[in-house]
Structures are given as structure tokens and as C-alpha cells.
């Protein structure tokens, strides 16, 4: 059992009377480098500053980032100011002071107070002048005591509590109040173990009525022959065409299903990984739709949309099944992607011709190496792309007889839809199922040397660079594909998949992406794994690669994930709250944050996430235009414009449904949250003792605990005073205590307080 340890940071200041003239309004100077005490600039003001750090034993469960850095002490008259870098997850700061360094006593008089930093003035044409003032904060006390020594003690939060919240931020779409309690009680390690073995978790989301309905709609007609269809006739009543009807699952249904699972699934890690896979092996629904539009004209795009939706769903379903298998490997996941007709269409293999004088389309060959396996310029070059592109030629699509599904050489079905009596040969009148097939007529049959150089026309395999170290460095990784004709040409692609799956470049790139997903955004390609001073980031990537290499079969997903989750880096304060939520993560975590299973405190229909996510930076699930997938880093998502959309969604969600700001069409400006609704008063009455319901401080404490569970009261001082102030004033700022207002006003006030805290910067983090 890990105990919270009291950490003591001593600032001993040896002051003389001449030195105490620090101007209050001077902008501060902050040491840009942590861990190195330094003299304050303009050091003549203070003769010396000595920072003594008494390091406690670091709790293994959650290592602290660094000790507190005190960087400024000043005194103006009787006012003494102390500035130090806040300590992560600080439950409390204690100030000790005395004129005798050996007899320090607690000084509770220090208060966190603002000081002027700067003003910003913007002149906006023609006469609109905006002035804003920036403040810094320091700990301040006023007394007439003589010069003193001061010491700051930090009491960190219980690291088990922090770690429980951390794993819910990473392995799940954020905490729910109940999950926070459950995981804190069971311990983070037990939760990690639970989530790494999802087949042992009873998935209650599978029986939620909203999900069941969508599931049935999606799972029903996966074959075009089964799709409900209408009949088009010519003026003589002769049936000429059959068209799809809208009873089948559409893209909005798939998105609702996917995001509802993100909110409600017990197998949260599976949902996180599915989104990762969906985004890593990115495909674009509308590209498929455009492709099928060439096959189905005149039916209002319903057929192409439904077929394209199915392709995304089938891909998702295969990954889902794979992840429930303890022996699942990266190779399994890559194979599913390569065989997905959505991918074959997305990166243009479907139209590629490499036979004869045709130049094979390079798109898939480039991106499977750059983005799906090896990483950009990591072990391949343009000639590898060009050569590989020929191998993929022939991987294309066809509408085939349902009985032939799985037969990669199936030919176009000859079954017409039963009612058709004219125009038999039109693809749109064929009854069958779109499938990935191999067509040897467009395949390039030549011998292919990939990852080879030539010396006097003799191919020489490339070798793994020295930076990879043992066991990889120096390995030959050339792939020689023999000349293959006819249906044998299909094997070219599978040879490539097998080769790419476990190349050290792939191990590195995928490990980097997983570390960026689960730890922080700072991992990158290109570490020198032989460097004795390899950074902790590089060491973790290396550990993942070794787990990949040493698992049997290679590339076992759970082994790699387990390496990450059990790493020091994952359990370090440096990774806690170090990531900013993506649009998907912010909308899902917003609902989860105040959702409890035994009361209707927050809910969504799933559909209502689509528009807000689009507004928050065009995160359109299953429809990414660029093959690099949606970004995982903060810079890719955060700007003034997208923050405005995030805050608007949160505010609309918190506003009572049906009232201004949460009513009307979601596509307008007055109902950003749509059918995402909440009832925070019900949450408070369900989870808090009644004695605290009308106590501003108690309500604030509870909300801070569930919304910012990794941060301690020591650092939430200003958030708390803001929300207490908000709760105890009316809209015009006049004093108005919670226990004096109507039930309706109480409801609005609580909604406002939740919305306020969720609109603060820390709620954007995870």
C-alpha cells in the first residue's frame, strides 16, 4: 500500500534590511528550466537565496515530476511575497516561518493573491478598443515581523487516487463518478489488468436499448442482396432499376453506435483501441461513397452511402473481434486493414493497373509504409514505393454472389435483382455483395525487389541501421517477390503484409504512436537505441519493441500495452494530465464526467456528438480526408475558434434541455449539444449527503473532486474560490446564497457551476 508522503521544500532566505526593496508591479522573471535553483534576475535586491530540498522516497505508483522550485521572494513594506512553481497534485501547501531557521513554526497567513503582469490593448476598426489585464499569482502575507526564514511544505495527494484517475483518463474515455470510486477502491493495477483482458468483462453496453437497436440495424443487411430495395419502372411499367431504401444503417447510425459505446462500454480500453485503429488505418467513408456513386446513379445516393457505411462497419467489427483474442498481433490488425475494401478504395488500389505499360498507382504503397507501418522515410525510399505499388495492382472490388464471399478470385455475380426485366447488365441491378477480389488482368507480374539496392545489377538486401542495436541492427530485410502470374499474384500483397508486420521500423513507429496515445505527445521516430544516455521516452519505445519482438507470435498487442501501462513513464506525474482531449474525447468525457449508472444524471443519443465534433475542428469519424488520421496532439486541435466551440458544447449540454441555448435545431446556433443532456442536481442529491446540498463550499468540493480528480486542493484554490463565488452570486454578481434561492434557480445555478468548471482549461486535459 502506498502512503501519501509529506514532502518538504525549504526556502531559507537570508535577508538583510537593505535587500528588501522588491517592487510589487515588476513583471516576474521565471526560471525556464526546472530543477536548477538560480538567483533571481536583478539579484542585487536579494543577497542570496538558498533552496534546500528534502526529497522524500518517491512513491513507486506515481512518481513525482520534480520538487517545487521557489523562484522569487520579495518584501514591500510589511508585505511579503513568495512565488514558487506549483507542485503536481498538491493536496496542501504549508508555510513555516521563523527568524530562527531551526525553530520554524506554521504560518497560516499566506494567501494566494494576484499581481499585475501586463495589459493588452487591441484597437479594432473603427473605434472598438479592447483592454485586457493579465495577472500572475503569488503567496502573500502581511505582518510586521522581522526578517524571517520561510519553508514551504507540500502535502501531495494520495498517489493511488491520482493513479486511479490517470488510468481512467488513458485506458478509458475519462472518469465517471462511480468508476472513480470503483477504480480507487480496486487499485489502478487491477483496473489495468481488467481492461487488458476484456473478454472477461461482461459488456453491459451490449444490452443498452439504444445500442441494441443500432447494433441490429448495422448487423442486419451486410449483403446488398439483403438490402431492402424499391423498384423503379419505366413509363410502360417495365422494371428497369432497383434502388436501396433508407431502412439500412447510415453513416450517422454507425457514428452513433461507435460513440455510444465510447460513453457506456465497460470494455473502455477496447473502445479506445478501436478508435485508435480506425484512425491509424484511416479510411474515408465519402471516398467509398464517391466510388460507388459511379456504380449506382439515380437513387439519391442511398445505396452508395449504405454500402460505404457497411465497409466501415465490417472493418470495425473485425478489429473488435481481433482485440478480444488474447493472442491478437499487429499483423492481424494490419491484415484486416489491407483486406478492407474501404482501404482498397481509399488509397486507390481499386483503380490501379500495373500490367503492361501502365504505371501502378503509388498511393497505397506509399502510405502503408509511411503511415501504417514503418513511419516516414524510416527504412524505405521512393524506389521501394514504386516497386511495391506494382505488387498491389489487382487488389480491387467486385460485386459477387454472397456464396462467394471470401473467394478472392470470385467474378461478378450474374444474379439480377428478381424484379428486373430490363437493363440486366447494369451493375446497379445486380444482386450481390461488394467484396475485395484480386484481378490478375491488372496485376504487374514481374519479379519485385523491395528494400534492395543493386550493385552491378545484382540485388543486395538493405540492412537495419546500427541505431536499432541488438537484436535488430544489421538484419537483412529485403523482400524478393518472384514473378507470379494469374491468381498467384494475390500472394504478392500478403508477402508484403507479412514482411511489414514485424520490421523493426514498424515496431518502432507503432510503439511511438501507442506511447503518444497513452503517455504523452512527445515521442518521435529516430531514437538511437544504442545510446547509453537514451532518454526515458526512447527507453520506453525500446521496451515496447522488445515486448513486440519477444512475444510469440511476434507483435502481441497486449504485451506491448502491458509494457506501457507498467512503465515508470506512464506512472509519472509528467504524463498525468499531459494530453489535451481530442474533440471525440471532450464530448464523450463531458457526458461521462457526471454520468452515473443508477440515475439519469447525464446521457446522449450518440447522434448529437457528430455536429459538435465537426465544429471543434472537423473531426468527422470514419470520414478523414487525409491518410495520416486525425491528430493526437494538442496543436492539432486547440485554437481560439475550437475552444469557443468546446465551451459552447459544454454550456449547451449543461443548460436545461428545452430552454434557451439548448433548444431548436442542432444545426443552428442555439442547441449545440442536441440530445446530450444532464441533470447535475440529481447527481448531487444522489452522491452528496443532504447536509451539503446548499453549502457552496461542499458543492464546490464535490464538483472539483469528480471533474479534476488528479489535482489536489492545494492547486485548485482559485478554481474553488471561483466556483464558490459563482454559486453564491446571481447573474448580475449580487450576493445570493444557495439556501436562499428557488428550486428552479438552484437548478440553473448548479448547471452553471458545472458548466463553468468544465469550461476551464484543466477540463480540456486528460
Amino acid at each position, binding site marked *: 500500500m502506498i502512503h501519501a508522503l509529506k514532502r518538504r521544500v525549504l526556502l531559507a532566505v537570508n535577508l538583510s534590511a537593505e535587500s528588501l526593496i522588491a517592487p510589487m508591479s515588476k513583471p516576474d522573471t521565471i526560471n525556464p528550466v526546472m530543477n536548477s535553483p538560480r538567483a533571481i534576475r536583478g539579484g542585487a535586491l536579494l543577497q542570496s537565496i538558498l533552496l534546500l530540498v528534502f526529497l522524500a522516497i518517491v512513491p513507486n505508483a506515481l512518481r513525482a515530476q520534480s520538487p517545487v522550485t521557489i523562484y522569487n521572494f520579495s518584501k514591500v513594506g510589511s508585505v511579503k511575497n513568495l512565488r514558487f512553481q506549483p507542485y503536481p497534485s498538491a493536496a496542501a501547501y504549508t508555510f513555516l516561518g521563523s527568524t530562527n531557521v531551526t525553530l520554524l513554526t506554521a504560518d497560516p497567513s499566506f494567501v494566494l493573491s494576484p499581481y499585475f503582469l501586463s495589459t493588452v490593448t487591441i484597437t479594432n*476598426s473603427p473605434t472598438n478598443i479592447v483592454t485586457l489585464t493579465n495577472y500572475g499569482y503569488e503567496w502573500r502575507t502581511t505582518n510586521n515581523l522581522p526578517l524571517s526564514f520561510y519553508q514551504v511544505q507540500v502535502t501531495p495527494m494520495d498517489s493511488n487516487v491520482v493513479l486511479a484517475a490517470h488510468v481512467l483518463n488513458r485506458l478509458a474515455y475519462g472518469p465517471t463518478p462511480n468508476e472513480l470510486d470503483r477504480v480507487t477502491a480496486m487499485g489502478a493495477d487491477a483496473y489495468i489488468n481488467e481492461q487488458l483482458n476484456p473478454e472477461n468483462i461482461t459488456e453491459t453496453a451490449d444490452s443498452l436499448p439504444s445500442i441494441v437497436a443500432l447494433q441490429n440495424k448495422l448487423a442486419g443487411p451486410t449483403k446488398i442482396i439483403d438490402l431492402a430495395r424499391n423498384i423503379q419502372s419505366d413509363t410502360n411499367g417495365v422494371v428497369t432499376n432497383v434502388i436501396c431504401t433508407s431502412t439500412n444503417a447510415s453513416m450517422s447510425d454507425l457514428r452513433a453506435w461507435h460513440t455510444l459505446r465510447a460513453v457506456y462500454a465497460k470494455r473502455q480500453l477496447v473502445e479506445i483501441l478501436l478508435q485508435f485503429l480506425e484512425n491509424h488505418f484511416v479510411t474515408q467513408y465519402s471516398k467509398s461513397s464517391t466510388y460507388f456513386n459511379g456504380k449506382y446513379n439515380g437513387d439519391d445516393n442511398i445505396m452508395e452511402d449504405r454500402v460505404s457505411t457497411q465497409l466501415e462497419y465490417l472493418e470495425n467489427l473485425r478489429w473488435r473481434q481481433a482485440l478480444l483474442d488474447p493472442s491478437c498481433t499487429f499483423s492481424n490488425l494490419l491484415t484486416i486493414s489491407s483486406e478492407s475494401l474501404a482501404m482498397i478504395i481509399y488509397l486507390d488500389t481499386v483503380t490501379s493497373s500495373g500490367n503492361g505499360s501502365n504505371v501502378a498507382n503509388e498511393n497505397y504503397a506509399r502510405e502503408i509504409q509511411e503511415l501504417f507501418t514503418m513511419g516516414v522515410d524510416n527504412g524505405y525510399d521512393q524506389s521501394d514505393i514504386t516497386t511495391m505499388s506494382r505488387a498491389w495492382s489487382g487488389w480491387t472490388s467486385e460485386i459477387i454472389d454472397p456464396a462467394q464471399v471470401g473467394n478472392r478470385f470470385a467474378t461478378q455475380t450474374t444474379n439480377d435483382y428478381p424484379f428486373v426485366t430490363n437493363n440486366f447488365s447494369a451493375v446497379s441491378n445486380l444482386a450481390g455483395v461488394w467484396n475485395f477480389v484480386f484481378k490478375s488482368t491488372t496485376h504487374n507480374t514481374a519479379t519485385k525487389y523491395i528494400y534492395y539496392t543493386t550493385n552491378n545489377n545484382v540485388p543486395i538486401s538493405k540492412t537495419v541501421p546500427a541505431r536499432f542495436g541488438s537484436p535488430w541492427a544489421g538484419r537483412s530485410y529485403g523482400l524478393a517477390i518472384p514473378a507470379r502470374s494469374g491468381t498467384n499474384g494475390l500472394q504478392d500483397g500478403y508477402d508484403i503484409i507479412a514482411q511489414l508486420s514485424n520490421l523493426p521500423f514498424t515496431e518502432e513507429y507503432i510503439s511511438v504512436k501507442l506511447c503518444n496515445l497513452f503517455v504523452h505527445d512527445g515521442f518521435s521516430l529516430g531514437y538511437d537505441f544504442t545510446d547509453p544516455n537514451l532518454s526515458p521516452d526512447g527507453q520506453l519505445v525500446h521496451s515496447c519493441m522488445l515486448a513486440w519482438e519477444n512475444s510469440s507470435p511476434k507483435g502481441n498487442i497486449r504485451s506491448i500495452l502491458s509494457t506501457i501501462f507498467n512503465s515508470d513513464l506512464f506512472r509519472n506525474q509528467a504524463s498525468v494530465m499531459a494530453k489535451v482531449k481530442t474533440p471525440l474525447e471532450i464530448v464523450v468525457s463531458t457526458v461521462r464526467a457526471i454520468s452515473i449508472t443508477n440515475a439519469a444524471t447525464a446521457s446522449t443519443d450518440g447522434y448529437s456528438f457528430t455536429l459538435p465534433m465537426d465544429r471543434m475542428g472537423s473531426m468527422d469519424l470514419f470520414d478523414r480526408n487525409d491518410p495520416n488520421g486525425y491528430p493526437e496532439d494538442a496543436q492539432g486541435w486547440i485554437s481560439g475558434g475550437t475552444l469557443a466551440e468546446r465551451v459552447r458544447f459544454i454550456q449547451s449540454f449543461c443548460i436545461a434541455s428545452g430552454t434557451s441555448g439548448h433548444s431548436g435545431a442542432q444545426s443552428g446556433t442555439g442547441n449545440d449539444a442536441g440530445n446530450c443532456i444532464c441533470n447535475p442536481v440529481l447527481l448531487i442529491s444522489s452522491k452528496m449527503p443532504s447536509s451539503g446540498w446548499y453549502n457552496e463550499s461542499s458543492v464546490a468540493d464535490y464538483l472539483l473532486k469528480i471533474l479534476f480528480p488528479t489535482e489536489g486542493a492545494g492547486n485548485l484554490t482559485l478554481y474553488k474560490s471561483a466556483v464558490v463565488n459563482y454559486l453564491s452570486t446571481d447573474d448580475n454578481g449580487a450576493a445570493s446564497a444557495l439556501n436562499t434561492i428557488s428550486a428552479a434557480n438552484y437548478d440553473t445555478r448548479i448547471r452553471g457551476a458545472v458548466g463553468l468548471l468544465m*469550461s476551464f482549461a484543466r477540463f480540456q486535459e486528460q
Partner: protein
Amino acid sequence: MQTFNVITRRGFLDRSVKIGLGVALSTLTDIPLVLKRALADGSIGGNGKKVIFLWMRGANDGLNSLIPVNDSGYAASRSSILIPTNGTAYNNTTGGCEFTPANGGDTFPADGTGKQYALALQNGFAGLHPSLKFLAPVYNAGELALIHRVAYANQSRSHFDSQNYWENGTPNNKLVTDGIFYRTMLQSILNGTAKNPGLTGVSIQSALPMILRGSATPMTNLTDPTRYNLLGIPNTTAGNSKADKFMNASTDYPFPPKMDRDFLQQQYENLATTLQVFAGIDFSETGNTFTDDPAAPIDGGASPYYLFPTTNAKNGGGVTNRYVVDTGAYTLFKNIKAAAMILNKTDAIVAGTEFSGFDTHNSQGNYVGSHANLQRRIGWAMFALKQYFTRYSDKVSWNDVIVVTLSEFGRTSKENGSKGTDHAEAGVMFVAGGGVKGYGKTPPGGGSARTSGVFACGPNPEVYNGTTINWNTGTSGSMFTGTTKNYLQRAVDYRSVLGEIIRDHLGASQTQLNSIIPGYANTKEKLASGGVSGIDNTTIAGELNII
């Protein structure tokens, strides 16, 4: 256990550019950028000059935009995507760009079967994609530079790396994580004053692009300017005001440093600031009343076209065969309109947006199709911006504005088996503005008036700064270099074009430019002078003297 080296938000040095600069600038890079500006002076932000950038993501097929029709290698390498030619006007060497108003018919020139031909630029060599028709009036006014064969040494053919390099201005160096225009804004006289430097650079798109990103100050990105306000709970004036007040105050609260925390905090401050600024500009659809000159409508119709097509009714003549852009372009033009209005009505210096769809690996089309639709957007955008800043001049006029396009690379010369083109090297840049010295204009420094506004795509050797640039024709000529003999070779570095704009238009001193685009300080790069690049031994033009 090592820890992060976290840089705190306020009062710190902008380090990221320093990482990339290397030795050449080491003496300057230890000085905070704000101080460097004071040392080097310059007049960015003080001369009233502005820039609009249009990012064409996905890599535009430059060979089908600015078409080397008199290179036999062009027709030999393309079949289904070929832009056909008609007549012999391409051989003319005077007369500017062909332009025929539609006079009520289809907006774009076509023969009786609907086939459209490359417009002759009459420089003896090149043609323009017919969907770029509306570039002609800008070109013929001498306000457009059409620059071919633009790339950089050791061209990356990855979309994402290459976009990265175009934006950070340091090819093949990913360690530099701030952008060219960000660094330009840091050198503006508005930085280091009480003005908010974050408002000097604005993008209107889904995310702040790297070209405006940097760690010292947050540039502004608006996703939808018409929705840029908050709600409050309750959603009343008082409720909104109360919520805004509490939220804005929270942006100053101290917390322990975390990896993304400074960045997030900066953007929150940016939100707090810009909410109040942009509330004063009418970005609404009803406010979109800007039109072409009623006295001389460009397309020969009775009434002038709207400059920013944001609805079918405001698209060209309002009927299908007189649309000036495809119906998918409305969001783009909403964003272009916002960028133009922000430059025209605020102190912003750089504004821009992006559009994608240029990654035409399959079925890219020819005079019709997806690539043609994108060309229409470029052509109409340039014309519309010229008319907007000419007719609705507020803070600035067309002479104060330069519009520049960016695109990460060109595409393969030879058509692939999917009737498309793959990733290659050099592409085309479009630079428009009242101050551009194009067709018929006298170049800076004097001399005879230019007979062409086409650069690096002509029949004769072109001499820049004493360096000769040739376009070698035929199936083993300029279009067929590189490892697979399928790429157009570079003759112009994109940084030379941007450098000219930043120095000669925006007003950077050469010293400032050397820190904005570090390659300028590296004598091997030849960005200003031209010559044989010491990086890849390719002969490049250096600056083109277009401003």
C-alpha cells in the same frame, strides 16, 4: 528518472527556432526575438501591408495548372488528363492571357462539344488551365506572377513532411516547430507593444496551421467566425456575461507545468481576447453583399457577380451554367471572405485559409473533373480578392495586399494507371496583388516592361540575378528527372518567393528575414542570389523580383 524540461509561459525565450538555425545565426539566436526585432528594426505591421495565404493541401498538379503546352513531353506523358490545345496562340509572345467573357453562355470557354482548351498565356510556351480563366484579368493587369517549378532541395514526397517544411521554412528539418508567418509576426512592430501580437496572424479553418504556430504567443484561428461567441448558463445577456467573466479570469490561474499546458493556456487567453475583437465584424451571410463592379461586370452579364460565392444564388450568375465555382466551394469562400475582412478591418497582418482535394491519385479529370473544380476556386479567389480590396477598401487597398498560394509539391509528369498522378517534386505558386510586378509592369530596379508574368516556364532561357534557367523540352527534358524520371525539376525555391514577399512587401529588414527564413543566412542555399545550390547542386533562380 529524468523529467521534462518544461518551459514556463511568461517571459521566456522562443527556443524552437533556435534549434533549427544551426551555427549560422548563433550570435543572434541567443537574443529573445522581441529584442532582435528592436535591433534589426524593419517595418512589418507599420507600413499597412498585408498578406493572404491560401493553402492548397494535397499537392496541386502544377503541370495541369500552368501548362507547358509547347513542351512535347507534356502531351506525350498524359492522355486522359491532358488539357487540349487549340490554335497557335501559344506561340505568340505578346498580348497577355487570353480571356473571353461568357456573355451569358457557359462561364468557361469551350468548343461546340464542351471541350475546353488551355488558355494561351502568349509567352511563346505556356497555357493556363481553362478553369483558371478568371486569373486572366488579374494577370493582364500585371498583378499576377505565375511561378513554375517551385520546390526545395531534397524534396520530400510525403504530404505531411512537405507541408511541414513549407510552413516551418526549414526543409528537411522537423525540429523547427514554429512557422514562417509566425516568425514574421514576431518581428512586427506590433509585437512587444501593448498590442496583442496574437491578432497579427489569423487563420480561418479547422485548426491553427503550423505556419502560424509558435510557442511565444498564440496566433488566432477561427473555425466559424459566425459562431464565435459563448452561451452562458442561463443563456441570457447577464448569464453569458457572468460565465465569460469567470472563464476569462481563470486563464491566469497558476498550475503545475505540464507538457501541453502553456499552449492550452495561451489559446484560452487568445479566446478571451479575440472574442471581444471579432464580435465587431459582421461575418454573417446577410453581410455578404460584396460584388464585382456593376459598371463593368467581369463575365459580360447584366449584373455583377458576388465576389464570395457562399450560396447558389451568390455563385456567379446564380444558375448552374454560370457558376464561377463548384457548389462544394462555399465554405472556402466564406473563409476567404472572413480573412479578407479581418485584414481590411483590423490590425491583422497575415490571414489565410486552406482547402484540400488536390491529392489526385485517381480520376483527376482534365478540363472538367475534380482538379478542374479546384482550379476554378483558385482563379475566382484571386479575382474576387482583387475586386474586394479595390472596391471595398477600408484599412487597406489592393496595392497593400498580396495573395500567395502554398502547395507541398507537384505531381508526376506521367499519368498513372488510375487516370491520376502521384507525388513528385516541383509545382506552381500563384502570387497576386496590386504591388506585384507581372505582365506589362516594370520590374523593381527598372528595365523594360515585362512581356510575361510567367516565371520559369518559358521557351527561352530566363536569366535571374545572373543565373540562367532553362526549360528543356521533350520526353527526356525538365519534366523527367528524379529517380523514376517522372518529376519536374525545381528551378525556384519556395522560400525565395516567400522571402521577397516578407521583406519587400511586408517590410522586414534583411536581418529580420535571415531569422524568419534561416536559409537566407546560409550562403549554400542561394535563396536570394540564385545559382547552383550547395545543398543539392541544382541551379535555382534565387529571387524573381516580382515585388
